[in-house]
């Protein structure tokens, strides 16, 4: 294998630095080691979170942006260096590849041919014409053929897979394509979230990191949210029945499920989460003879004006020993501070206030759902997939596609008519030897010939 560090003396020190394979290996190892940090230290938490590591570590975490390692200036610098190194190394190899690619493989001496490791030589009967042997060879061998006179005869070359020298460029280039795709996504895309109660609609989303609203250019409406469970209680399916409305017209009406996103106008919508929003019914009997049945939706302040009572839901548990439970806050005009009280369906609770005793019971709960959607625009994602495909294609070419050359010389030497078949391949040598054997079997006069 030809090394890349051959023409050291000619190049300037900057290019020499970036083109050194030592830098490539250093960067690979450094990236491997530094990447560990972000997997051990929780990432993207509020800065105060990291104070628990003590003042010294906190200073380091803050200075080196370890709270968001993979977007820190030094990690991005490593990635940029990696990309530059890749480009420079690859370009520096270009002359070597071009030389290999343009090399005239027909320009070979008979002596060199005779010293090839994979070789067959036979003495031909006098009545066989050179052209006859050559045409038989051409038919059997395939590939691109070239020929010319050599010594007292003629040499023919069949080449295959010369293009495989470019596999390296496809492989290394693919990583740059992936980087480019990621960059396009960062610069031109966004990621946000949307939460919609059943029946609600919105035309914007909340951007993930900044919390800023971003207009979508259309409206998403959640008609209904349903969820189902397996018999053992594991969630089976989350479904949001969505309408996409553009210019007042419903353009898409579809059920959104996990793993089955919906895309409209370059924006993709994903089912991400859900929340059950309770609406509880309570019955209150006061000791002064008044009583009332109240509907209390979550996040709302409900009043009972006759008794000067206000209340609301603080916490809600859908399943406490098989029944729902809710914690309410309660305020009234008794002069006492507001209190919190837990209600369990089927159990009456007494609330003693100075002016009254209230008996509270939780009659029932109805749940409404709120669906959580992830909204994403990433115009670079197709570049990433192209890059990934190129990476695999390049890898297969680099490791499995070989450049193979097979020569046939037919001519006279020492008064005898002889034919020499020789070949070489730069990869998969074992397979080439087998192929070579098969080929020689196909050409009469070579089959069974001496090695």
């Amino acid at each position, binding site marked *: *294998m030809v*090394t*890349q560090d051959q023409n050291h003396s000619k190049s300037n020190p900057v290019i020499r630095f970036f083109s050194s*394979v030592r830098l*490539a*290996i250093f960067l*690979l*190892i450094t*990236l*491997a080691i530094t*990447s*560990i940090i*972000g*997997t*051990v230290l929780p*990432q993207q938490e509020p800065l105060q979170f990291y104070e628990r590591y003590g003042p010294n570590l906190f200073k380091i975490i803050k200075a080196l942006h370890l709270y968001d*390692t*993979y977007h820190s200036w030094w990690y991005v610098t490593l990635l940029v260096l990696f990309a530059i190194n890749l480009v420079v190394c690859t370009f520096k190899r270009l002359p070597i590849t071009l030389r290999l690619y343009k090399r005239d493989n027909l320009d070979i001496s008979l002596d060199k041919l005779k010293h090839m490791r994979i070789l067959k030589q036979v003495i031909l009967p006098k009545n066989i014409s050179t052209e006859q042997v050559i045409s038989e060879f051409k038919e059997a061998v395939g590939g691109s053929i070239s020929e010319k006179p050599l010594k007292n005869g003629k040499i023919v070359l069949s080449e295959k897979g010369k293009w495989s020298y470019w596999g390296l460029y496809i492989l290394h280039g693919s990583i740059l394509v992936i980087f480019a795709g*990621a960059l396009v996504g960062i610069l031109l895309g966004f*990621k946000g979230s949307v939460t919609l109660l059943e029946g609600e609609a919105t035309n914007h989303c909340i951007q993930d990191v900044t919390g800023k609203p971003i207009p979508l250019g259309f409206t998403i409406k959640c008609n209904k949210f349903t969820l189902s469970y*397996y*018999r*053992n209680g*594991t*969630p*089976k*399916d*989350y479904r949001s029945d969505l309408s996409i409305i553009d210019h007042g017209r419903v353009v898409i009406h579809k059920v959104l*499920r*996990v*793993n*089955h*996103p919906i895309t409209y106008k370059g924006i*993709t919508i*994903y*089912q*991400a989460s859900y929340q059950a929003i309770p609406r509880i019914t309570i019955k209150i009997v006061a000791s002064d003879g008044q009583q009332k049945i109240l509907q209390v939706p979550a996040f709302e302040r409900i009043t009972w004006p006759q008794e000067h009572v206000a209340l609301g839901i603080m916490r809600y548990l859908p399943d406490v020993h098989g029944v729902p439970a809710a914690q309410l806050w309660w305020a009234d005009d008794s002069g006492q501070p507001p209190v919190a009280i837990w209600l369990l369906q089927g159990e009456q609770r007494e609330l003693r206030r100075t002016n009254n005793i209230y008996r509270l019971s939780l009659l029932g709960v109805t749940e409404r759902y709120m669906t959580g959607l*992830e*909204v*994403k625009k990433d115009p670079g*994602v197709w570049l*990433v*997939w192209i890059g*990934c495909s190129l*990476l*695999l294609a390049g*890898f*297969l070419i680099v*490791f499995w596609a070989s450049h193979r050359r097979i020569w046939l010389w037919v001519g006279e030497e020492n008064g005898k008519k002889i034919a020499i078949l020789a070949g070489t391949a730069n990869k998969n040598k074992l397979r080439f030897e087998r192929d070579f054997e098969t080929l020689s079997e196909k050409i009469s006069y070579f089959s069974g010939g001496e090695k």
Partner: protein
Amino acid sequence: MNIDSSHILSITTFVYMAAAILYISYWVFKAKRLGIVATTVTVIGFLMQTFALGYRWYESYKLGYGHAPLSNLYESLVFFAWVTIAVYLVIEWRTKSRIIGAFATPFATFAIAYASFNPNVNSQIEPLVPALQSNWLLAHVITCFLGYASFAVACGLAIMYLIKSKSPNPDEGITGALPSLKMLDDLMHQTIIFGFLWLSIGIITGSIWANRAWGSYWSWDPKETWSLITWFIYATALHARFVKGWRGKRIAILSIIGFCSVIFTYFGVNYLLAGLHSYAAPQ
């Protein structure tokens, strides 16, 4: 008692254990017959396990879940053992060398034994949560584990290489029975290339899936990051060999470091770090 797939898999564990002991005895005592027995036992174990995996798939349909047995820690460990044995059997068939079995079958045995006998690993067939209901699950897990299993075999080869190269008289006694250093080096290189290709495909299918399920092809989740770290290590090994001409001992050491990283990607992340891959965690 009803026999289910996890029973057959526990029995397979003992078959693989026997195979590993046989291979090691074959190596130490240089008894040719033991080698043949070892291969036979391994093939029997492999067929048993193949049947058990197919049966488990069928069982999941009977339970009304209907998914390939690749969905949790138990199933992935079992699959890892299966692929490791498959990769090893191909190498044995192609190189006609049985001694590698003494270094490859223990990895498979350990994985399936851990799955079968560690009380923290749940062997129940469980339904798939919505995020896992994707055909990419199959593609992702199969390709990743083809990579992991190849790296396990490459690690076994690296250990063989180091044992042989450290020995004062490498061509005699137990070390003499090991394949030549050149052959070990060559095989190690081939297996790393094979594993690297599958790891790359595994990472790519994983990101395609993540993009469909969560809308992000790369989110620096600990599992993702560790798979990338593993990828960097093997990329280093390949470049060091191609460009710097590293051979033998240095590549063997990188191969062992690489496999440690594989183990951490697989276990360490599940046990020690939280993330999107929590399905694969023990319960």
